[in-house]
């Protein structure tokens, strides 16, 4: 599904990722944890193809294709989805309209017929229920005037509509209160499928109580220092990250 080999990347001339190796199988849920500045968000942005992140070495292969050679929109058409840590506001652009443009561009790429407005509205209303998103949000500007929690919910709603095969959730839990966290996590759980892989980037074990990962990785100083199952997350919660670094250095 996704294979990352010896990935090095820099931002503004500074090397952030220093040789990442990671393999993600279909249907698996991986959690990537690590201290601030360890490169977690950089990793999601590099996979999604954001400008300004320069890959200096290594490869990312996705369903047998060279992901790094694709434009961001091509990656989206191939099924890569990034739930943003800070979803941006786009004033005046209708939330549903933008999403419809995205869905239809993807369908066109896959040789499928584009959805008309009526079919699309039906799809969207159905998916909005998944994250308990009020229908009034559908006709508002993209993230315009949304609260932090509403923005995050909107991300998962978009994920539900776009049906990705690889979803990267970049600190989707940050800024959420307990109720909102539960709603968002429930939404993600309903979207778990055998052919859909999910990578969660997070600081806290808390999210993993709701969305149970198959694998947990510790990312520190641009490298994956340790991998394990969900018990690793609990251990990190009680012991912090330093012991992992020390162990790796030894």
């Amino acid at each position: 599904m996704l294979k990352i080999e010896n990935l090095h990347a820099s931002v503004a001339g500074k090397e952030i990722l220093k040789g990442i190796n990671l393999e993600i199988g279909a249907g698996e849920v991986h959690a990537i944890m690590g201290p601030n500045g360890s490169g977690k968000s950089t990793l999601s942005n590099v996979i999604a193809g954001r400008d300004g992140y320069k890959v200096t070495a290594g490869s990312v292969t996705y369903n047998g294709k060279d992901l790094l050679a694709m434009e961001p929109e091509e990656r989206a058409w191939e099924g890569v989805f990034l739930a943003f840590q800070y979803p941006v506001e786009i004033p005046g652009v209708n939330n549903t309209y933008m999403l419809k443009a995205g869905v239809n561009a993807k369908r066109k790429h896959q040789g499928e017929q584009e959805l008309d407005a009526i079919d699309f509205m039906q799809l969207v209303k159905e998916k909005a229920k998944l994250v308990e998103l009020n229908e009034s949000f559908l006709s508002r500007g993209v993230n315009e005037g949304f609260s932090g929690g509403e923005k995050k919910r909107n991300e998962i709603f978009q994920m539900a509509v776009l049906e990705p095969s690889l979803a990267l959730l970049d600190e989707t839990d940050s800024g959420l209160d307990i109720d909102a966290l539960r709603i968002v996590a429930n939404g993600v759980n309903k979207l778990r499928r055998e052919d859909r892989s999910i990578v969660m980037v997070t600081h806290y074990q808390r999210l993993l109580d709701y969305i149970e990962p198959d694998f947990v990785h510790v990312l520190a100083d641009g490298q994956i220092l340790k991998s394990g199952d969900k018990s690793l997350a609990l251990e990190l919660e009680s012991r912090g990250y330093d012991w992992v670094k020390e162990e790796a250095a030894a």
Partner: protein
Amino acid sequence: MSDATLTKKTEPKPEEFTNNEYEAGFVTDIDSDTLPPGLNEDVIRHISAKKDEPEWLLNWRLEAFRHWLTMSEPHWAHVQYDKIDFQSISYYSAPKSQEDGPKSLDEIDPKLLETYEKLGIPLREQEFLAGVAVDAVFDSVSVATTFKGKLKDAGVIFCPISEAVRDYPELVQQYLGSVVPSGDNFYAALNSAVFTDGSFVYIPKGVRCPMELSTYFRINALNTGQFERTLIIADEGAYVSYLEGCTAPQRDENQLHAAVVELVLLDDAQIKYATVQNWYPGDENGLGGIYNFVTKRADCRGPRSKVSWTQVETGSAITWKYPSCVLRGDDSVGEFYSVALTKMRQEADTGTKMIHIGKNTKSTIVSKGIAAGHGQQAYRGLVRIGKNADGARNFTQCDSLLIGDTCGAHTFPYVEVKNPTATMEHEATTSKIGEDQLFYCRQRGISEEDAVNMIVNGFCKDVFNELPMEFAVEANRLMEVSLEGAVG
């Protein structure tokens, strides 16, 4: 109204979408009667004689001309261009086949019909959008006006102004120059001296005009200036919605378009005036393009009258216009909604003037400026609250959007308040299309080009909402912006 730009919905490669091709840039090969370049009293007499005008109008023109000779070109606008040689311009050009004035639709030169058809403006009534009457102005003359009969049944007069001078002289004489006096400014004086055609509208007392009226201006002849004059009078309780569109061929020379539009509103009258301006903008190096120097003003004479200007300015090398509202009647309302786009080497200095004279007068200004490429954009607006304008209110919002870092946006708001009961609100923002907005859209599967257009259209939404439906769609298409080097 410029349905001219039928967009090709192919998928251009990034290097190809620097500039959308100007699709109205063709030339119609037609025999024209064109005056040699130059401006003097004989030229004015010639124009007046061509149009068989009464003495008073010729004298009015000559007086304007003599006044113009004493005036100097204004240079306060934030635009740069070479000095205009007013003696190198031809002031009159008309297709020969139209010499005897507008004929019935069946007799129009097929080449003219074809020209307008190519621009998306079929002049045969049965083919046109139901509910829109069109006056087609080609260079210096009106070549056709549709649905005249139907409008006349409702008492509405909609005809070329030259025809109005002949058929309704008392109306023309009463109102011409009463809103924009002939000596108002340099270009208004020039227009008053040499204006050739334009539309005339009169909506009688209590009549709601049964259809949208629109004028489509086309410059075709080389080295010719277009100086049209539009006069719209809405009598007590009348209502009309009026649209104008403009295109011109692609040429290396600059051409001058200096129009005057006067709106008169009596008690309780309402006029909605929308412009979709798509004159040839010149090429990416700034060669050619129209100089669009226009004076537009509405006079809300009667209480409770209401005027709204909506403009989408996407064409012209240089745009210099400030559709204004004189709010004389108590409780009268003025609105100005504007989107101006400058790309390549285009420059625009545009805005409005809201002159509050009557009590409880209200004005709204929403201006959206978008600059891309090497485009320069200035909003210039005056809000003046006179000393008797108790309870006057103004709301101004002016936003600028920059695409890339070689363009510029400037704001020049002027406020004069002479009455302490006035309420003024002003909001202004300048933003850049963010890399993060673009990436967000692309991550959702939307191509970079489509994403830019989506963001720009979202930015303009408040203004597009004011346009009639068909024109909003057209405006959306005209806003397709180039992207090269747009995002840092």
